[in-house]
């Protein structure tokens, strides 16, 4: 089963990359662009049924994929 873990910087945490992209997009003429934030999308194949898989993905995120001090995560399983 294909699943995803999305890892984002917490809202209050500075995102220098997002800021730089925002400036660049504005410089290209996309003047309405605001609040650009860059996150990570980790896609992977996992085995097992959807319910179990979600718990396992959360465990992966807790242990390795995200650092709770600065990041939040969200897990999604393809239906």
């Amino acid at each position, binding site marked *: 089963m294909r699943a995803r873990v999305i890892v984002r910087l917490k809202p209050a945490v500075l995102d*220098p*990359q997002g800021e*730089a*992209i925002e400036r*660049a997009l504005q*410089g*290209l003429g996309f003047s309405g662009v605001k609040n650009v934030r*860059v996150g990570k999308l980790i896609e992977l194949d996992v085995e097992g049924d959807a319910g179990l898989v979600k718990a396992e993905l959360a465990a992966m995120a807790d242990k390795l994929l995200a650092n709770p001090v600065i990041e939040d995560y969200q897990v999604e399983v393809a239906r």
Partner: protein
Amino acid sequence: MTTAVVTFPGSNCDRDCVHAVGDALGAPVARSWHKDHELPTGTTSVILPGGFSYGDYLRCGAMAALSPIMAAVKRFADAGGPVLGICNGFQILCEARLLPGALLRNHDGLFHCQDVELEVTAGGIGLLAPFDRRQRIVLPIAHGEGNYTADEATLDRLEAEGRVAFRYLARDAAGNGAVNGARRGIAGLLGGPCNNVVGLMPHPERRSGAHLHGSDGLLLLRGLVAAGANLGEARA
């Protein structure tokens, strides 16, 4: 006759290049700013230096490739002007499509600062005139994203056209650069209408003097300046 060194926000080898060309080589050198729309008057060659333009955010070189000065650099290169992109400069050349392919993160995910042995595969051609064909040299690398990639057809074409400028001598089992995973060990490329554009990951300006652990790098800078002088003469 002047070598223009371009500074992007986040360039950090621009001063080193100015020093290497100006002091070690004793050639005229001028500085150019990313917001400029034209290269300095009298420019006969251009260096895009190493560093972290725009912090290497999004993709290395992506934002720098869109800056006003790059339009001027592109015109200059299209007209046969010699352009050298070093490290981040190489990444910028690829992002600006002046060279094919792209540079991905090193295969082990780590930044590597170390000396590497290189073959100057296209030695003798254009900017590489001071080198013999297949001459072996040692230059330092310092990058996190030097893992050169392009599709198979492009790689084949590059080899067929003799446009692989530099290759890492140390390769893994698949023939990729052992240090960063670069496809077919490609460390640098030739491009432009008359092989007048060179991009490479290693830093020639860091091997440009007696006390900098070697001067192999100075040869390349000399080749750039000489190519510019020839061009200047041809135009004059």
